[in-house]
């Protein structure tokens, strides 16, 4: 078994109103100096050793993200 992390983020050119709302809230809460926030998704997968990188890429590209609006990064992480 191995742990795999998939991070999915809205593409830079896609408006991210959720991230903007978070960014606008920070000064109101007394946190200054944060100029931008982008909000995405973080997946943690427990996978068998038989699952290869191609398969992980297919999972990330074909299901966990929508390539029209999102980019993804797949990482295997040490336990």
């Amino acid at each position, binding site marked *: 078994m191995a742990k795999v992390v998939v991070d999915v983020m809205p593409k830079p050119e*896609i*408006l991210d*109103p959720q991230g903007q709302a978070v960014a606008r809230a920070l000064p109101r809460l007394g946190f200054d100096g944060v100029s931008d926030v982008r909000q995405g998704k973080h997946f943690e997968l427990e996978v068998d050793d038989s699952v290869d990188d191609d398969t992980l890429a297919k999972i990330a590209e074909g*299901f966990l993200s*929508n390539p029209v*609006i999102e980019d993804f990064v797949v990482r295997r992480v040490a336990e």
Partner: protein
Amino acid sequence: MTARIGVITFPGTLDDIDAARAVKYADIEAVSLWHGDHDLKGVDAVVVPGGFSYGDYLRAGAIARFAPVMAKVVDAARGGMPVLGICNGFQILCEAGLLPGALVRNHKLHFVCRDQWLRVENTSTAWTTRYEPGAEILVPVKNGEGAYMADEATLDALEGDGRVVFRYVGGNPNGSRRDIAGISSRDGRIVGLMPHPEHAIDALTGPSDDGLGMFLSALDALQGAAA
């Protein structure tokens, strides 16, 4: 021959009953299809209705596209069967790759629910032949993730090919690129839109009966095919 249109129900679908009612108003037989069905029961066209299929988990439409019935819809649509996706149905058709682009969260984060004017920009699709070119229709819009997004090249291609079928007029409710409310496939058989024509088929229960024309257009398309 009576035309038959299938209306799909996923877990979390809300507007299947109204969609079936709209189909019946157009003198078409409405056939219920379940997300787990492995066949389309011989229907001539399909409506993918609105709601929150599978709770909108992951992304709106992202899980519904893998439902067994959708595999059949995709096959049939590629063969020319008319398909209409409304709201969540539009999101599902985009996720399934039948229509380009994607729907993302409304630009001001609000769930928008109001009566909305649309301009019919293409009256040659299977779902819009009953409208006059440039007709303006009033139908409800209700969504939280209704902003249509695609890259500039895709938007230019859609415009150039006349595949922008509906455009918002009198104010863009959600930040959709180029005020796009609905688009079609290249052959005009598949149409997806965020607003709800099925809620506007009778002035007693909706803001107008402007939406009924979409279902009557389908009737014409199906009867023309049978004749």
